[in-house]
């Protein structure tokens, strides 16, 4: 296993560099083909050239390579002539960004020169709570539903889980979010708020159409459940399939034959092995959940990272979008790495050599 871990860690470096380059190249190409993104901030008005120049420089779009279509911005002609190892070139925009991210923890600034890291630091507690609720919800409910369906293959429970998972998969998360917000948060919430005997924590806090700063945890429960709902379906299906596979295994029959209680056979012998793929999925799903948080936070007005991304995207503050997404991608890569390492620990059959 040691060799596997070392190899996986070594593979991590080129993957991070490659992903950073992909992100960098996509944004550079977009700028090269559609012109200076700073102009979008002014709408129809023509900004004074000096102002445009100043903002462009400040947001880091001043590099001349962003005017050459298709240029990956890897190298630039050195000013002094010598350059790097005497080639006449020195590391360009891509390497500037890399060193900014990895050595100075610098992900860019917004229009008011606030660092993106500050903006994210303000927003992260909300997103973190939201993700926590979503993951707990999808793990608990998804695994429970999957076990229930898997143990009774072909029965009513099985079909119910199968059909409802197909439905949940096919409802885009923003449709689900908007409908839940209006039906549960507004309509049902209004009914609850009309009753005197229901505590405010429930009627105003939980069943709310949007985030309430007075109830920082309660008002995130429904958004979190919406966020978890989509992966809930996949979790349930995965658990169901893997329970169905394992229930026929020899060691389960042995456990039954030697007279263990049903609870122990299912809970210890079957479930433990069946949960390996599910745990992997939940880990990988953190990335998808972060992307989903963009949608959920926008719908429920949660002041987290996701809403920061959408709001900046709508106002055209592309430097913030690039910075935040770069940061999120790094987190996702790290999560994937941890899942892979955990996988090697959990499953003794795996000997990657």
């Amino acid at each position, binding site marked *: 296993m040691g060799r596997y871990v070392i190899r996986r860690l070594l593979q991590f470096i080129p993957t991070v560099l490659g992903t950073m380059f992909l992100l960098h190249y*996509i944004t550079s190409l977009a700028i090269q083909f*559609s012109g200076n993104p700073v102009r979008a901030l002014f709408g129809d008005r023509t900004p004074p050239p000096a102002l445009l120049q100043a903002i462009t420089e400040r947001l880091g779009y001043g590099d001349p390579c962003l005017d050459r279509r298709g240029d990956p911005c890897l190298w630039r002609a050195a000013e002094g002539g010598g350059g790097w190892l005497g080639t006449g070139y020195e590391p360009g925009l891509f390497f500037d960004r890399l060193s900014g991210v990895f050595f100075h923890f610098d992900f860019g600034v917004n229009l008011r020169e606030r660092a993106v890291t500050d903006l994210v630091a303000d927003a992260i507690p909300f997103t973190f709570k939201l993700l926590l609720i979503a993951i707990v919800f999808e793990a608990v409910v998804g695994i429970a539903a999957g076990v229930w369906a898997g143990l009774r293959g072909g029965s009513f429970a099985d079909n119910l889980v199968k059909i409802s998972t*197909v439905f949940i*998969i096919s409802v885009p*998360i923003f449709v689900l979010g908007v409908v839940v917000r209006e039906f549960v948060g*507004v309509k049902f919430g209004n009914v609850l708020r009309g009753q005197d005997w229901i505590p405010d924590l429930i009627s105003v806090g939980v069943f709310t159409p949007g985030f309430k700063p007075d109830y920082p945890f309660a008002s995130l429960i429904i958004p979190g459940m919406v966020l978890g709902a989509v*992966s809930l379906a996949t979790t349930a299906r995965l658990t169901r399939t893997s329970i169905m596979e394992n229930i026929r295994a020899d060691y389960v029959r042995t456990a039954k034959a030697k007279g263990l209680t049903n609870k122990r056979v299912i809970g210890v012998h079957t479930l433990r092995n069946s949960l390996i793929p599910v745990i992997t999925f939940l880990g990988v799903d953190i990335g998808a959940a972060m*992307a989903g948080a963009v949608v959920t936070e926008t719908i429920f007005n949660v002041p987290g990272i996701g809403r920061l991304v959408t709001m900046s*995207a709508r106002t055209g503050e592309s430097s913030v979008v690039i910075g935040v997404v770069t940061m999120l991608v790094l987190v996702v890569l790290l999560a994937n790495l941890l899942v892979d390492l955990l996988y090697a620990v959990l499953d003794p059959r795996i000997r990657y050599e």
Partner: protein
Amino acid sequence: MSDLTSAGTAVGGGPVGGDGPVPNQPATGGKERSASLWADARRQLMRDPVFVIAFLYILVVGSMAAFPWLWTSQDPRDCNTNRSRLSPSAEHLFGTDILGCDYYAHAIYGARPSMVIALMATVAIVVVGGLLGLLAGYHGGWVDTIISRVMDIFFSLPFLLGAIVFLTVIKRQNIWTISLVLFLLAWPTIARIIRGSVISSKDLDYVHAAKAVGARNSRVMFRHILPNAIAPMLVYATIVLGSFVAAEATLTFLGVGLQPPAQSWGIMISAHQVYFLEDPWLLLFPCGLLVGTVLSFILMGDALRDALDPKFR
């Protein structure tokens, strides 16, 4: 987008049986089950009510996208604020929207951008992803290493985040750029599926036989290996059409997709979400159409997978 990942895991069932017959082979008499895999699949699909209903629904939505004038004689841009937010009636089947435009016509014309984007992006990922997967699986070695590493890199960029960054920076949010970004971020999945089924079928006897009689690489790839890899690709392409329809609507809802003068279901949903309490149909009609389309594509993909996998027979 988790739709895409779930579609990916749903398809991960591996390739269909390695030594299935070449498609379109004429049925030869004599044996009891003599039909080809595809004829069998067609017969099974036609008997499956879920598939037939989903297929008919897609035909309806497809004809809305291709020939909207067959479905409505009203112009969705013929608006009059005097009739803002009318309830559904015989004259206006879905009522009218906030600007007083006919909502039914808007819904019909709104099918086109979603379907066109989904179709263009899917064709692109099938062609490019399929070709790269075929090359990687067939040649192996350093070709495989390079293509697989590039796929890994694209995989690690979460779909929605990548799309938001690209569409924010490029500012031109139209059918072409949205299809382009969907294609760019989704091709590795299909390449990986094809690569897997090519690797599993490239060592089969008939491939060796074809090589032994001197077939060129391209002939072996396209005539002998590709037909075996087509079934899982077809299943995935069907499901991914649904996820692309959903992805387009999601991006539009977030404000980085199509912009309001255009007509699309995503715009209908995002523009009318605040009127839900008074006029819920403004939200429910586009949501219903959208969910129905995505659901139909996913159900069709599921039915196709069951029909094309001989192990389920």
